[in-house]
């Protein structure tokens, strides 16, 4: 009698816990599942359908979209899409490298400043990214338009043709990307510099005469986790960027994001857009996976935060 009531009260506790888990987690989990997982699965399915009238997908299933993505169209093969893909990769690579070049000394400089200034300095770096992407990019359009001081300067140096303006161009896109992603690199690098083990650096200064070697052996490895985290935060969204190339680049500066978006916004070829999206997803998850692998190998057990 006592036994059975005890058992039932224990069972009630277990059931209660499970019900608690369901009540607390279910609304969000169901929300994300219905409004993100299902749409993503549907989008992937679309990539394997045929393009119908008005750009809406149709049966039968086919690989048409992927062939189009590779450049095969009604008029035979054209390299346009391939160029777009390569340009996306190139822009990602160049802008990430430039972001590192700028962010590294900035993050270091902030750690050398007095402690009470550091939060304010970090805030100063981050605040511009609080404004809307479109507005930030619009600011650069104003700065780089023909007839502005910067364009005139480039003109007089012979870098661009007369009355051309610095935008639209590939250069403007790179600049916009660097501007957009700089804070995402500064923050993790700053965190890494702040944790820097000064004793190691001093030991290295004792061991290696040259500051360059001391830096390379003692400082750089310690900042590597931050560098990797920053690369994840910069390179992956840069690859899928839509707004910046759309506004600052012309037709010749298109990136994968534009190719995909255009199929939905105006061009109306959903399967082609979906195929492009699959490519982007592969790049995203591949990139994340690669960074985690590298992070685990180099970070000395330290997890790279994504």
């Amino acid at each position, binding site marked *: 009698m*006592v*036994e059975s*009531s*005890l058992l039932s*009260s*224990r069972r009630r*506790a277990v059931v209660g816990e499970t019900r608690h888990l369901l009540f607390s987690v279910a609304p969000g989990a169901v929300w994300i599942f219905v409004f993100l997982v299902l749409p993503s699965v549907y989008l992937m399915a679309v990539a394997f359908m045929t393009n119908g009238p008005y750009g809406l997908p149709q049966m039968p299933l086919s690989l048409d979209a992927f062939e189009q993505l590779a450049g095969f169209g009604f008029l035979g093969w054209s390299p346009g899409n391939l160029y777009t893909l390569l340009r996306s990769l190139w822009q990602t690579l160049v802008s990430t490298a430039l972001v590192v070049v700028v962010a590294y000394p900035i993050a270091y400089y902030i750690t050398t400043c007095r402690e009470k200034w550091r939060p304010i300095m970090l805030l100063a770096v981050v605040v511009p990214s609080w404004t809307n992407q479109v507005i930030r990019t619009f600011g650069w359009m104003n700065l780089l338009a023909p007839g502005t001081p910067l364009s005139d300067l480039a003109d007089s140096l012979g870098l661009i043709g007369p009355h051309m303006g610095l935008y639209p161009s590939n250069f403007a896109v790179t600049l916009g990307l660097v501007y957009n992603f700089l804070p995402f690199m500064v923050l993790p690098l700053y965190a890494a510099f702040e944790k820097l083990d000064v004793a190691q650096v001093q030991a290295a200064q004792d061991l290696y005469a040259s500051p360059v070697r001391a830096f390379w052996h003692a400082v750089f490895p310690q900042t590597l986790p931050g560098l990797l985290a920053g690369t994840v935060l910069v390179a992956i969204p840069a690859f899928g960027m839509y707004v910046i190339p759309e506004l600052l680049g012309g037709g010749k500066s298109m990136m994968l994001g534009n190719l995909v978006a255009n199929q939905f916004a105006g061009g109306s070829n959903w399967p082609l857009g979906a195929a492009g999206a699959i490519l982007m997803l592969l790049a995203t998850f591949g990139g994340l996976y690669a960074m985690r692998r590298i992070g685990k190998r180099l970070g000395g057990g330290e997890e790279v935060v994504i």
Partner: protein
Amino acid sequence: MSDPTAAATAATQQAETSGADTREARPREASSIELKGLHKRFGKDTVALDGVDLTIEAGEFFTLLGPSGCGKTTLLRILAGLEAPNDGRLLIGGKDVTDTPPHRRSVNTVFQSYALFPHLSVRDNLAFGLRMRGEPAAERHRKVDEVAEFIQLGSLVERRVEQLSGGQKQRIALARALICEPDVLLLDEPLSALDAGLRSQLQVELQRLQKRLGMTFVFVTHDQDEAMVMSDRIAVLDGGIIQQVGTPNEVYEHPANAFVARFMGHDNLFAISASEDDWVDTELGRLRLDPAEQRDDQAGWLLIRPETLELDGEVPEGYNRLEGTVEERLYRGSRIEYRLSVNGRTLMAVASNLGQRMHDVGDRVTISVCPEDLVRVAA
């Protein structure tokens, strides 16, 4: 319901100690605790409690003592209702509370980490339990002032928790539990985070407080000195089983088994190879002991308390005589500890420092042991 003699004792003790603080001393009905066949498993194979039967008298200062992982904290958490036993019953004040959730038990806990709410002031922390029980604000305010005065931290009530020192937090945590006037107060190693000086001061204070309030205290610790200083009775636990329950001097002087003896700090334990009437054969040789101490089984251990050994002068008639060499001497001020080698075995001896000549390392000494001081301990 509760044991009348214990209640009477508590009342007397209260009368004795409350002279100075008549205002704070609240006559109260303390509650006894009965544990019947408690079992607790974590997961499939971790057994935390393996059949615990125990009665804690009303108004008693009771200590659960044991090494970490012995089950003492689990037992305390079951008393608090924070953990449910897999089997067995728990009665507080004669009432079965096994299935009562913690917020409906008149039991309060002083946590090891103090667990003061960081979002509340000291005053609101103290009043938390009263507020949850729905006492009116004016009443809460009065009681908080009274309790703060009582623990001599009246000036701190408007502070924020993070402004307190460790010792102050400890007292606030204690006051937060006491203010609810529970039937039973549980203390989970509340002194372990404090430094030695503050700790021994609070040990004395806690013990006095308990006597004054006459409340049932269940105290958990791994420190046998602390347990002996404070408790009316001690339960020594190991492997989820109660090894011995008794007053401090019972547990110290007559440990039930070798584990309890070692845990209470005894080093001089010697395996018994044979025994009869008034003698035992040990690794040290044949020793005479009180026949009343003799046990039926041949095996077991002989316990020699270091402070009962005499190193100076003649061996009185009827005493055991041992010959040994001083291997090490530790000067501790009030006493001197010797590590002796007897028959190739180590024997510890402690002498009060009365200004007598100290033995040097390497000295041969004659050791005399009174047969009445030898204790047989079960395996």
